Each structure stands twice: as C-alpha cells, then as structure tokens.
C-alpha cells in the first residue's frame, strides 16, 4: 500500500514540475505566427503539388498573407482549388480575388501506332527520361511522345493515363488541376498548359516535330509540316510558325476553327466542339 502511495506522489510531483517548466518554456519560446496563415492553409486543398509555384500549400499561404499585407493578392492562383478556393481566401483576407481562367494540360502529339510507324524496338530501361537521353525512341520522330508514362507517374491527381490503343497519354479534363507536374517531367516538352476555353473548346497543334516537312511527314502521317497554311488563314494573328512547327496562341485564338479545316495533315485539332450533323448533298 505504502509502495503505491509513494509512486503516485513521486510521479505526480514530476508531472507538476514538468508542466510548470513546460508552461514557462512555451511562453518564452512561442513562435508568433499570423493567425491568418493557419486559416488560409486550412482553405487550401493540401495537395502540396507545387502548381502555384510555392513549396507546398503552407508556402502559398505565407505568400498570400504577405501579399495581403502589401495590399494585393493578384497573380496568386491555386490551380487545384481554382476560383472557389481563391474567392474564399480573398474573403478571409478581406481582399478582392483575382479570378483567372482555368488551364488544362494538353498533349501535343498524336503519334499513335497507326499514324507513326515503329521502325525499331527499344529494349532498355522503360522511362521516357532514359529513352530520351539515349535515343530518338522507337519511331522516326525525335520530338514525339515516347509512351513510357513518366507523366502518368508524376500526376498526383490521377488525371493522366496511357491509352493502351494509341500508346499516348490522355488527360482527364475534370481531374486535371493544371499543376504542371507532367509538363515539367516530360523530357520531350510535349505537354503544355493551355486555357480550358469556353465550354472546354480548345484548338491546338497536336504535334511538336521541328523537322522539315518531308522528314516529319515520313515519320508520322499527322505531323505538322510547317507549310504555313494555317498562318495564312488565321484572321486573328494567333498562329506563328517557327522551326517548321506551327503554334497557336490561346490568348489570341477565337476558335473559328478555320485552321483545323485548312491543315493538310490534320495536325491541328479541335476539342469538345459539337459534332456537326452531316449535311447530305443530293447528287
């Protein structure tokens, strides 16, 4: 009995002393953090993807609060949370939210097995980075998709998948947060972040081949051959051709889709446009 009593008293005394010491230490060494940082952090999705350009969500929260102190949070954007989250954060900080258009990743290669014949077989380490550093890949195109899915493993949102039929990655628009992880990891720089567009309508050049037309066409039937027809037909000055490759500026593009019809190889594609009903022409 005596034995139990002593232990209780001894342990109780240690607990009491420790709590007093800890109390004063915590007061003395308290880190003063702006309470808003905690609130903003709680609003952010916590994906820590780095898509905002900061090291994780807490980094973004610190930057937002610092921005609010300076008087503006313009230019900050959480690609994962989108406008909803940015609005809530703006409310919390008492600022006006800068709304911006959502972006989405697009794969600028259409070198499917049919379009781009395999001329050799690669038998080494199966990552895009390894292939890109040693050879041009299995096809005659030194610019196109290598099909090993480095982008798939980089995506934290399960938004990009390899299509087994085409051997190309496909982006799930609903899941893509435009964090840009796939853009960074692709050794061929095929993936690009583009504006999602009104109703999801997008027009872009689905090719990254900078070879001369004849060479590009030989390697892949849907390659951009740099002929310049799209540049001529565009009324909005949105298309430029550099190094035998056409590029559509999404800020200038009006989605008139004239270039899509004009392109002789079908390298320019339109996404999410309604399929036109076939007009039957009577002979």
């Amino acid at each position: 009995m005596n034995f139990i009593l002593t232990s209780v008293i001894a342990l109780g005394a240690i607990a009491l002393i420790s709590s007093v010491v800890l109390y004063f230490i915590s007061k003395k060494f308290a880190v003063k953090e702006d309470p808003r940082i905690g609130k903003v952090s709680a609003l952010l999705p916590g994906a820590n993807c780095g898509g905002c350009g900061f090291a994780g969500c807490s980094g973004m929260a610190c930057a937002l609060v610092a921005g609010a102190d300076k008087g503006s949070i313009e230019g900050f954007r959480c690609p994962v949370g989108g406008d909803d989250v940015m609005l809530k954060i703006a409310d919390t900080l008492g600022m006006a939210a800068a709304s911006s258009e959502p972006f989405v990743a697009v794969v600028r290669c259409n070198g499917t097995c049919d379009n781009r014949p395999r001329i050799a077989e690669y038998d080494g380490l199966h990552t895009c980075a390894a292939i890109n550093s040693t050879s041009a890949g299995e096809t005659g195109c030194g610019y196109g998709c290598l099909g090993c899915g480095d982008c798939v493993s980089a995506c934290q949102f399960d938004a990009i998948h390899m299509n087994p039929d085409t051997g190309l990655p496909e982006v799930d628009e609903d899941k893509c947060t435009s964090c840009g992880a796939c853009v960074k990891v692709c050794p061929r720089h095929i993936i690009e972040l583009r504006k999602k567009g009104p109703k999801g309508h997008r027009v872009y050049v689905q090719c990254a081949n900078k070879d001369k037309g004849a060479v590009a066409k030989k390697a892949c039937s849907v390659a951009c051959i740099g002929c310049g027809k799209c540049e001529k037909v565009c009324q909005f000055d949105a298309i430029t051709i550099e190094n035998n490759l056409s590029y559509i500026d999404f800020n200038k593009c009006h989605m008139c889709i004239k270039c899509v019809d004009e392109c002789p190889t079908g390298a320019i594609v339109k996404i999410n446009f309604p399929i036109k009903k076939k007009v039957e022409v009577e002979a």
Partner: protein
Amino acid sequence: MRLHTFKIGGVHPEENKITADVKTKNAALPKVAIFPLGQHIGAPAKPVVKRGDFVKVGTLIAESGGFVSAPIYSSVSGTVAKIDTSIDATGYRKPVIIINVEGDEWEESIDRSEKLETLDEHSELTPENIIDIIKRAGITGMGGAGFPAFIKLCPPPTAKAECIIINGVECEPYITADYRLMMEHAKEILVGLDLLMKAAKVDRGYIGIEENKPEAIKLFTQLTADDSRIEIVPLAQKYPQGGEKQLVDAVINRQVPAPPAIPVNVGAIIQNICTAYAVYQAVMKHKPLFERYTTVTGKQVKNPGNYLVRIGTTFGELICACGGMPEGDNKVLAGGPMMGKSVMSLDVPVTKGTNSITILSGNDARRKAIQPCIRCGKCVDACPMGLEPYLLAILSANNLYDRLENEGVTSCMSCGSCQFTCPSHRPILDNILQGKGVVMGMIKARNVKK
C-alpha cells in the same frame, strides 16, 4: 610470370573475336557518302563546301568549329549533293554533308606509295610541326570517344608528360580492327609512336597489348628489340583495360585521380593504335583522316571481316558486303557489345570513331528479364572506377541528383561492367547514364553562372 593489369574491378566477357585471322579488305566505294559534322567531342565542324562543289578524296569539306573540334575531309570524289540533317546512331537528326560519289580521284598531295618513311629521314620535323599537322589532318581519338588528338599532346601547364602509351588492348569482345592493323602495319605504327613521342617531347613509349594477342606481342617485341625507349607491355586479359585510366594503371602503375584530372596529370598521354597509324599517314604521307579500320562481325553474319572503310559509308552497305543481315531479330551496334550504341537505322554512316559494326542476333539481341536487386554487390566489385553502381542507379531513378553528384557519378565512363555482371539483369547503366546526363547539365549550368 604474372602479367600486369588494372587493380580495381573489371569483368571477363566472352571474347568472340571471330574475325581475328581475317585479312583486311578494302571496302567497296559507297554510292553516297554521309559526313556528320559532329564526329568528335567538342564543337561541330563548319562546312566549307556548298551544294554542287566538286571534291576529291582528301579535300577539306568542313573546318574546325572551335578549339576542341576537328576538321573533316572528304573520303570520296564527287559532287556535294546537299548540306542537310540526317539521323545519327541515336536516331536524332544531326547536320551532315552528303556527297554523291563519282570515280575515285585523289588529291595530288597525298603520297599513295607503300614506302615506309621513318623519322630519321625527316629530321626537319619539329614538335610544333607535327602537332600542327595532326590538328589539320582532323585526327581524333579512334578508339570510340573521339577526342581531338592534338589537344592531348598539348598538356595544360600544370602537368608534364613523361611517356606516351599506345592502346593496343582492344578489350571489347568481337572487335579485331586494331589487331589486324597491328599485324598488317606494325612498322608504320612504330613510326607513328616515334612522331607522337617527338611531338610530346618525351623519350619513353609503351604499347600495351592484351595476352590474347600473342602474335602481336611477338611481332612488336621483335621490331622494338633494339629500341630501348619503347617497351611492349603484355597485359592480362580483363575488360575495360582499354579505358584510359585503367591503361595507365596497368602499364605504368599510376592512378589517375577523379575528374577533372586526366592521365597527363600523372605524366601519361594515351593514344589508340589506329590514332598512331593515322598520325603516321598524316605526317609522312600527307593523308588526312578519311578512312579507318572497321570490323563487321556477329555470330550469325555470313562473312564477317575486317575492312578499310572510307568514312561516310553507311552501315547498310558494309553489312551487304558481308552477306547481309541475318534472319530474325537483330541488334546492330556501332562499336562492340559492351560499349557500342545500337543504331536505329542502317543509313547511319561510319565515322572516325566507328571501330566496329557488331550484329547481335536471336537471343543475344534482346535483354533478359529484369529481376529485383538481391544486394549481392557484384556490381561494386566489377566497377573499375571504384563506384557503387547499384546506389548510383537507385539515386538516379529517384531523381536525387545532388547526392548522385557526391557519389562520383561523373567518374563513370559507362563501360557497362556493372550491368554485364548483374545476376538480376538490372538496367543499372541505363539509370546511371540518365542521371549522369542531368548531373553534367547541372555542373555546366553552375559553371556558366560563375
């Protein structure tokens, strides 16, 4: 007597030198010759001809594009068809000069006689002369790496050359081009060594030859019996003895420190057998580098052989001359099976560094199934640079490039001993090379910032 060899690591791949006794033939002239502008390490050469120009064998077609660079000479006579891009061994398109071959007209200045010219008859040659001729003749290291030869002969002021080591090791399986050259042009090679020694102002010369070439060792020992400056060093057979640092270790028992140190920091200048021969031809016969000895080999190839090939001949033409491609799956390598790069197309031309075209057929053409690492440490034992290949591979696969640099990945010379010895057939070298590429980029970016 125990033969010399390098101390750390090394492997013993199957020899397969099936063409060792096949006498060298002249390869047929190509119909179209393709000259890549970047056949060497360093800046690509700049074309000095234009479309429609007529060139002869030995005409300068591209001049040196910088300090670390080399000029390129035409190996054929004909008309320049175009200056364009064409795929190289990796499949990427690189700038090339394409010449349509017409006849076989040589520049008059080239001495085509067989007469042996010795250094004693040409006492007017100064070291500066010789280095200048080597530079202008476009001679690059012909063992594979393709480093311009004259740079090695002008060591940085902090280092002093003491000897020249000629690399007659040919440790790669299958390849026999160096061996045939040694057997057929031994005297010329020795004059070449004389010239190199004079150019580097040294009075000690070694020729390292592996024990699997007893005939060559005998021949060279006889020829140098009364020359006390030159020593023939028979070496135990081990891969990768032909690596510069391994050869220095094996022949003169000195160890080259980690990069950026080079062999001349311990007093040795290494040149390949082919390079010594090319130096002889350039200095004594006024013949720039435009043809080379190349082995076309493979177990399933009908008539494997050694050829004196004009640079710019495509692989396809050479393989046709040997009886065409074997049936089934084939892997065509520019180089030997250990370090050679597989080519994507047979339209790739022979360059200054192509010592062999090796065709692996059937099961040899494919890699074996990858198994998990069993931590046996064989790759660590095999690495001739004393690295830990398994660790480098893991770091590289996980993108830990800072640690990769600290673990000495830049010392890796991609000899492939680790991957060869791995019982799980893991793609160790693939991983390391990919990581090494990134690290080299990081170092370059850092140097630019400074």
